[in-house]
């Protein structure tokens, strides 16, 4: 299962904060996520801790984190 952790305003667009979705063959993240399409410029995408983007293909046991640009507390 590909696991998604979706932080901040991205979670409002997707409608979930955590998801697990079975993806057997590589597929771009933006095609897997439910909800409203995410705008590339608003979010940082990490796949297995490495920088990625919404077009990065994932499958299997990938761990995806999507978080908004932020500037600290």
């Amino acid at each position, binding site marked *: 299962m590909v696991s998604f*952790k979706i*932080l*901040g*305003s991205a*979670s*409002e667009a997707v409608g979930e*904060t955590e998801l697990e979705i079975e993806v057997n063959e590589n597929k771009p993240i933006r095609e897997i996520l439910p909800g409203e399409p995410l*705008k590339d410029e*608003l979010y*940082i995408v*990490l796949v297995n*801790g490495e*920088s990625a983007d919404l077009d990065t293909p994932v499958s299997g046991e990938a761990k995806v*984190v999507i*978080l*908004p*640009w*932020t*500037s*600290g*507390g």
Partner: protein
Amino acid sequence: MKLRLLRVDLSARNSEVEELDQSVIEKYVGGRGLSSKLIWDEVEKGTDPLGPGNKLVMAGGPLTGLPVPSSGKMVMAAKSPHTMGYGDGNIGTQASVQLRKTGHDAVLFEGISEDPVWVHVDDDEVVFKDASDLWGKDTYQKEDMLYEKAGKNIGAVMIGPAGENLVKYATIMSERGRAGGRTGMGAVMGSKKLAAVSFNGTQTPYMEDEQRLRDMAGDAYQEISDSEDYNFWMRQGTMLAVQLCNTNSTLPVRNFSEGIFEDAERVDGKAMESMKEGKKGCPNCNMQCGNMIMDAEDEEIELDYENVAMLGPNLGIGNLRQVGVLNKLCDQYGLDTISGGSSVAFAMEAAQKGLIEEDIEFGDYEGAKQLLEDISLRRGIGDQLAEGTKRTAKQWGNESEGWAMQIKNLEISAYNCYSLPGMALAFGTSPIGGHHKDSWVIAWELENDRSSYSDGKIEEILNQQRKRGGAFESFTTCRLPWIEVGFNLDWYEKMFEAATGISQTWDDFDQLGDRIYALVRSIFAREYGKNWSNAMDVPPDRWFDEELTEGEHAGASLDRERFMDMLKRYYDRRGWTDQGVPSSETLKELGLDFVIPELEENFDL
């Protein structure tokens, strides 16, 4: 436009107004820019920061108090008793707005009052009021008394017992939770026996083109509230950072020994939302960041990320309502939550390692409460911890300085950098010590080769330091709208021109940032003299010599050699020497020739 500086002599109990001409605004703008110039000019090398020679500045800027987004801020600055260099902090409060409504842009306090005093500025009138009944009261009590005596229309700042007791990281407080000046500005007020300052004004602050400013302000506020990030920001504010940091192993946990916390979900933004009672923020702000909950004593408390992280996970405490009580205690005592949290964590680790006999351990809520009180009142080991973690480590020994989490004596705020070389450099080169406000590059690092020591990270740090540490601190407006909701930077050129009649671009504002950084660094270099070196910009040993042991980034630590090389490249980009002192060429380019003679006494520029 001229700047009106109110000079208040607490020894002689008199005041006068000095008008500073437009060239000062063009070169230093206000806020931090103006404050750093005043401190360089008027606080001589070697001045006791808690003596009569130190000067305390409360400075707004040309945008402070005007009808533009997030403009309720002012800067409070002095020689810091904690870092022994330039110290400041900004605070969002009605006092900022009222300061400008009195017809003044900044106030400079000098001398020392013999007895506790409350200075009330009522338009042009400056009244020195007996504060013997205020002295000893906490900040909540003081504010209630001020409102009772002078009416609720005033804007007031005050210190608590921590400031009165000269705790090195005592803050200046306002409005039950608004805090500023974690570099010990509260102690400077305490040393001057200045219990409180209040402002009550009836004037309209200077606006070169008021109609233009008001017209554009409506659109500016609208741009903020239309942002796609706005709704979530209003839900959680900075509290999102708990989850963000925990997810990325950058949360300070148990005195920065780990980066993830097992109870993070109990203290994060989502947990806060389940307890939320309301919001609170600065004047003139439509994206208020403070979130109110009821604490474990059933009293309202405003929560923000730094406070929660430093008083929660960093102490091993995973109960948000208990964290709220610790936050409230700091606010009432006028104690910085970051340094306070770090000092308590330091004591907890010292007890764990057998350096001290006190019965306190991570997760000990009652012990933390007691220790925060002991620090504020300078009781027992609290008296040592009131001096900060580095000075305490020198007394407690056993290589504890390596896990005294500070830079230039100032305790590092709530981001754990074992796996973040860029953020570690941002902390190291922060102008006031271990603080995140000027440059926070974690998001940038996550997006761009997190583990690298790249030139790109240096450029991003410089970019943020110029804008956040230079321009916003001098306008003086909050820096949060820029990144958090994508507020367009072009607004500031337009608002600045309408407010002042002076046309400046972001190139000018960026140079202002470089000027301020060079001037603040020059103050540090002058103070430390031969004792200054690039070691002052290096984070504590813990991040280099220890590793994260839990989470996805287990095994991560900073590489000292690569960090020092990155620091050198940062100095090169700034035009500073290998020891981190601005070169004479750089100082001349920035119009700071006047600092060269004093620096040349100790440095080859």
